[in-house]
């Protein structure tokens, strides 16, 4: 059986699954229940000067009848007294010495940072996470993403934290920037031991069209919130991989954003996360989802022959490249398995209206036919097909040797004739 033990930036846990700093990690009682359920670590709900929250606070995005595909919130950091939080950190560590308890922190002045770091470490925190990410409320007060968007401020505060902290320091980055790399590098220059990403994305999740007020509604007004949940995974994966493949950026990463099951977690790890944090999926389905995450990861590792999580971290990163390095002469076409086809013809419509008009209905059969001479191999039909494994994209040899755009520009490598471009 695979060994799931994890070491992320010097913070050790029995498995890579951590609760993200958010409501599921709001109190000691919750975190102990989560650890009992199998979670390997928890990043405590961000500590700072306790705030007052609004009601209501959350909004959900439904799509095609599925609720909570995306999620947003206008909640701030902890509203509980600091001494209560610290006492509970101490209690959790006493009961779970081998689990990771990370204190997420957000304050303003150097004095305040020093004070809250000392108290966190005294309480027994295994690491710190500097919350430079919250995109609503706190940033209006000069904290959260206001810090995360300014590399110089990020670097300065990180270096303060490093000065006062004997335990590893993670910097939690905001995705509300056009390029994540300068922000990761700022944390690295400040001396951070690792980064975590992503925090939530600035968003308005919807509008109450009868009252004409955005949601979540607080009396007659609303404000922009932070977007998260399954829908943000692609954005998170991109930011994660951007850091992981950079030669300059060398820190371990704790991946966050839209992780809902073991497959998502595997994807994060393959793109460079050494631990994986979860908030929304737990808010929607409970701590219990970790059982499947542990089993699924462990089975996957056994299947792939990975003995430790470390061996897996970043294994897909080298395969994340630039467009200019993709082989333009690689050619695929869609094949429809007549045995599996249920005759819904969703692919026909999708190809006709959204691609290259090369899937056609056939006389006397519901199974459509792919005109391979016209098929550009775009994947659209496979994406709309409801039957697993019915449409496959298969390579067709065309006699051209591999040639990328870069090679074409620099060496004049020959490109195959374009398909579907008439």
């Amino acid at each position, binding site marked *: 059986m695979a060994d799931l033990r994890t070491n992320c930036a010097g913070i050790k846990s029995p498995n890579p699954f951590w609760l993200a700093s958010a409501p599921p990690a709001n109190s000691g009682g919750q975190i102990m229940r989560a650890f009992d359920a199998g979670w390997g670590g928890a990043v405590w709900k961000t500590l700072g000067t306790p705030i007052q929250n609004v009601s209501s606070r959350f909004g959900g995005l439904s799509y095609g009848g599925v609720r909570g595909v995306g999620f947003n919130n206008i909640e701030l950091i902890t509203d509980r007294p600091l001494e209560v939080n610290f006492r509970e950190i101490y209690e959790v560590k006493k009961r779970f010495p081998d689990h990771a308890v990370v204190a997420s922190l957000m304050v303003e002045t150097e004095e305040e940072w020093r004070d809250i770091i000392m108290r966190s470490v005294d309480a027994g925190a295994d690491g710190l996470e500097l919350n430079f990410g919250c995109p609503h409320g706190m940033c209006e007060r000069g904290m959260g993403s206001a810090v995360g968007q300014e590399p110089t401020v990020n670097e300065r505060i990180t270096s303060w934290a490093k000065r006062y902290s004997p335990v590893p320091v993670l910097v939690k980055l905001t995705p509300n920037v056009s390029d994540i790399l300068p922000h990761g590098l700022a944390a690295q220059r400040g001396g951070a031991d690792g980064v975590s990403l992503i925090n939530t994305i600035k968003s308005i999740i919807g509008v109450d069209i009868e009252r004409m007020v955005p949601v979540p509604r607080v009396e007659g007004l609303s404000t922009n919130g932070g977007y998260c949940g399954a829908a943000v995974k692609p954005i998170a994966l991109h930011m994660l991989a951007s850091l992981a493949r950079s030669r300059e950026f060398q820190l371990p990463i704790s991946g966050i954003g839209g992780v809902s099951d073991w*497959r998502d977690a595997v994807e994060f790890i393959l793109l460079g996360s050494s631990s994986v944090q979860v908030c929304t999926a737990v808010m929607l389905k409970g701590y219990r989802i970790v059982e*499947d995450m542990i*089993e*699924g990861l462990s*089975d996957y590792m056994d299947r792939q022959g990975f003995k430790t999580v470390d061996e897996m971290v970043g294994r897909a990163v080298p395969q994340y490249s630039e467009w200019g390095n993709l082989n333009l002469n690689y050619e695929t076409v869609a094949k429809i398995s007549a045995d599996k086809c249920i005759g819904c013809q969703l692919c026909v419509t999708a190809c006709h209206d959204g691609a290259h008009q090369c899937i056609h209905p056939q006389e006397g059969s519901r199974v459509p036919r792919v005109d391979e001479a016209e098929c550009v191999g775009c994947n659209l039909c496979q994406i709309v097909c*409801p039957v697993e494994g019915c449409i496959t994209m298969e390579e067709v040899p065309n006699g051209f040797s591999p040639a990328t755009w870069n090679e074409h520009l620099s060496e004049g490598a020959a490109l195959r004739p374009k398909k579907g471009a008439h």
Partner: protein
Amino acid sequence: MTTPYPTLNASAGAPARGEEGFEDYKRALNANQARVEANRCLYCSDAPCIAACPTEINIPEFIRKIATGNERGSAKTIFDSNILGQSCARVCPVEVLCVGSCVYNHMGVPPIQIGQLQRYATDRAHEEGWRFYEAGASTGRRVALVGAGPASLAAAHELRRAGHGCVLFERRPQVGGLNVTGVAPYKMKADVGAREAEWVLGIGGVEVRAGVSVGAGEDVSFEDLEREFDAVFLGFGLGADSRLEAEGAGVPGVWGAVEFIEAFKLSQVDLSGVREAVVVGGGNTAVDAVRELIGLGVPSVTMAYRRGEDRMSGYAHEWRAAKVEGARGAWGLSPLGFERDAAGALRGVRLAEVDAACAPTGTERVLEAQLALLAIGQSKLAGVLAGVEGLAVERGCVRVDAEGRAGRAGYFAGGDCANGGKEVVNAAAEGKRAARAIDAFLGAGGSLRAHNSRGATGAQG
């Protein structure tokens, strides 16, 4: 290591079985169907389906694991609660258990096909040969299990996990109990039940003594068991079909329903010349028998019951299916005897019309039949316990407490012989529960052998 013992499949050259022509009445889901259905599950908290399952399988969890593609984990979640999850998936009356309690029923939305999903996950495990459990380190203690039906199989598996030695005593040549000999073939055929039993015993360290009957005046007595074993689990189920005291019950063409079902499941019965059949009774065995006779090709099958249709004890969903298949019901009729023709062959069943209180109205009827099956209950077997001091028998059933402990220290029971005849899933639950009580009894130093050593009383248990 598996213990060699006779199974159905092992008997090479065995004659074709009469049940082989039956098709599954609920078809297996393919991977697409399973995925789509699994994604429909709401993953309820404190789900009512779990509470409705006697073995308390964590249903939302196993279904979610199908949806995420964690099929191994899904199967394990099922087996963690119920090692007979594969047969239960097929034979459980899910309409009145898990599926009946799905919250979708309250939304007017078709409930999740829990049994079908359970079949999907457990069939995968059996096909792939996934095994999840190992025998515990040997404790040196030994337990005798009487009968090798679902109750004893579940108990033996749990006892092996705890490291106790197990010997199954089974009167029949094969293990599996009614899961092999009784279940309707459109739910599960004998070979599936037999293979599952083999898979369960694959945990190793269970000795099977097949063809050996236990009891007063049988091959092995309880005194013998008390000399050799530290504890005894009674899982011998129910006995032969009850017979009518009616005249002519011995005529050819008149069978007990369970006896008939066993005959056509394990071998063949000759139904040539049978145009009309009557099944006497109104319970689940009667309804199964009716559907089985229709499936075997009998043109006209009537169920004769002494009460009204609304008061039959068989499940309404099963009887509805039987009617769709062409079954007829004759209500308010109580059997009196059998009519034969000149050659001595069965010609009809003579019945008395009775009122709502089952009192005869004075009118008699004869239903023509060349085959009559009696499905009026099975006898109770607790008689084999005669002479075992302390064991209480109540209405033919072994009396047990909530943990499955019987009256005499070191004796435990579960399944049909204790509950009077319920379902496979109850037998599985009770067998496992009793195994835990046996483990506690043995762990506290209890042993049956204490009964036989001078001066010692039973045990702490």
